[in-house]
């Protein structure tokens, strides 16, 4: 039993550009061996999860309009199971950051991310979300949301064309497929809240 290469139906495996990084993740997961029962369950659940990625409608600027266009008839991301967009972070699987994040918005974005339930993903859409884009030299722009939250997929463009957004979302599907769900994505161990270190000025 092993974690398989992430095949998805929409595009042949070889046509994707960065198969290496995903294969590396799969190899790391395989290194300790995969339990037959849990591994099979993982595969079934990951198949379901990757085909029903619900995104939070989080559009701050131009890229949001392209995100709307992807949702409409011509590009229609319902074909991939992305069509359910949630307005509450508590019901969303991924946050699709479409647009510039400014200094005033940064704490809001962090809070939205923290409110989401695990397993959660972040997709950075467009130049602004990746690096600050054309506004990099501004006094009020975050230079890439990776400063605030961990990002899973970057979609370049200003704004990215709908095809690019779809490609990025398919990459996320593949990333979801090479995960251990049980004991992995569903159960990430948090830091213990009990403090064990003895303060320096403590005297008995």
């Amino acid at each position: 039993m092993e974690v398989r290469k992430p095949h998805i139906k929409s595009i042949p495996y070889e046509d994707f550009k960065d198969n290496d990084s995903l294969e590396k993740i799969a190899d790391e997961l395989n290194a300790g061996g995969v339990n037959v029962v849990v591994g099979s369950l993982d595969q079934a659940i990951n198949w379901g999860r990757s085909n029903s990625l619900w995104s939070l409608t989080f559009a701050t600027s131009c890229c949001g309009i392209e995100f709307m266009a992807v949702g409409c008839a011509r590009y229609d991301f319902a074909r991939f199971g992305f069509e359910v967009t949630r307005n509450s972070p508590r019901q969303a699987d991924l946050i699709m950051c479409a647009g510039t994040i400014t200094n005033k918005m940064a704490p809001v974005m962090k809070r939205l991310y923290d409110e989401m339930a695990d397993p959660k993903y972040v997709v950075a859409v467009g130049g602004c979300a990746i690096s600050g884009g054309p506004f990099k030299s501004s006094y009020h722009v975050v230079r890439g949301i990776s400063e605030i939250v961990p990002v899973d997929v970057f979609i370049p463009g200003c704004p990215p064309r709908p095809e690019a957004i779809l490609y990025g979302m398919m990459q996320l599907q593949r990333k979801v497929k090479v995960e251990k769900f049980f004991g992995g994505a569903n159960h990430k161990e948090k830091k213990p809240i009990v403090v064990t270190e003895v303060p320096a000025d403590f005297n008995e």
Partner: protein
Amino acid sequence: MKLNNLEFNLNDFASEMAKLKNEKHFDFLVTIVGEDFGEDGLGCIYILENTQSHERTSVKAVAKDRDNAYLPTVCNLWKAAELLEREVYDFLGIKFLGHPDMRRLYLRSDFQGYPLRKDFDMDPEKNKAPMFDDPEPDYTMQYSLDNEGKLVAKKKALFTDDDYVVNIGPQHPATHGVLRLQTILDGETIKKIYPHCGYIHRGIEKIAESYTYPQSLAFTDRMDYLSAMMNRHALVGVIEEAMGIELTDRIHYIRTIMDELQRLDSHLLFYSCCAQDLGALTAFIYGMRDREQVLNVMQETTGGRLIQNYYRIGGCQDDIDVNFVDNVKKLCAYMKPMFKEYRDIFTGNLILHNRFKGVGNLSRENAISYGCTGGTGRATGWHNDVRKNHPYDMYDKVDFKEIIYNNGDSFDRYMVRMDEMEQSVHILEQLIDNIPAGDFYVKQKPIIRVPEGQWYYSCEGSRGEIGVYLDSKGDKSPYRLKFRPMGLPLVSAMDEMLRGEKIADLIAVGASLDYVIPDIDR
């Protein structure tokens, strides 16, 4: 237009401004430009329009003391000044005497410094995003002078103990972006709305001061991305006017056609989003379907879908596509039956009528006072179309109707835009067959320098007048560049429109106003 600023003594500034408004009928405050005049101090330039003769004038007021700058307020004369003066206070630190609500508008309340001052430090290390919530005070300041001429601050509470406050936004699907409306409710009824902007404030005006003119063009498309062409039109327009560049007829034709295609695109998106906000998802899909057709036509020439980067100083980026004329003709033929479809599927809908008619009323006087241009102003009977009042390019040579409705409610705002789409198609049909031969670009020097002076130029954007104020010192980059946002007056008028209405109508009225937040915040 080149600005010849009137200057008044600061002591009788308020009475002179009142005279301008009441005696000379300059009742439309186009915008207030805050500017750092260097050695002279900090100041404002007020651009005013007479709504009868459409004559424009500008007034300059300067506060000499940089550390303790103050000017008299004009928000008792023009309601538009309420937010505009807060913007100036936010960016330059000029306090307005007698303004009832002197808080920051765009930046966080704990922001240090005033970014549009020339001595502001732009170092990214010093302007890192804070990771804690804004410690917003629940009071505001009002400034006045005491008998000895010293500045006195008075605290004023924003809320009473009985107020029930609901924050709508910044992350809310129906605010069309990251606007935050702090709404005070009495049961379901709205008592007061405090708009909070700046969640997408990117500092475009400040960055442009360090960029060359061709570089700063790229920002305009990203401001109001639904009227990307018109925004850029206004910016290249002001630079071309200042430099005295004569364009060929072909450029005028292409620009007019592109502007109208963009307007069609924007209004189709308005129709879609408006329908979606009211829960009519079918109409949303219909509008977006046809928007793709418009985008296709533009994309063949410009290469971009949403952000086209097509105009440049002295003309266009490239000539029109070989099939452009055919495509536009096909598009016009395609769109005409669609307007009937929109009427059938959504305009005639009883739910729409119930939710829109008589909701969010705005009177003509208030529309002028707040400076609500575009569809919102025209729905109140105010003739404010820049294409008619200050014609540019081909607009004085084509035949089109300025759509005017008189009730000023949400339904009329909706109808203005629906009818404007038909007018856009009408303009396209007149121009498309007659595009003259000629150059698409008038060659410019590699380094563009604008002669010294102050200019203001405006175009009719998709949702109002988009104006650009340019102050040049003869350098490669502008000394001060200021955009007149189309959405800011609409947001400031929301309180007036919605006081006494139900909170559910806030979404409907917001949909009918059709604001775009990056345009407000810049």
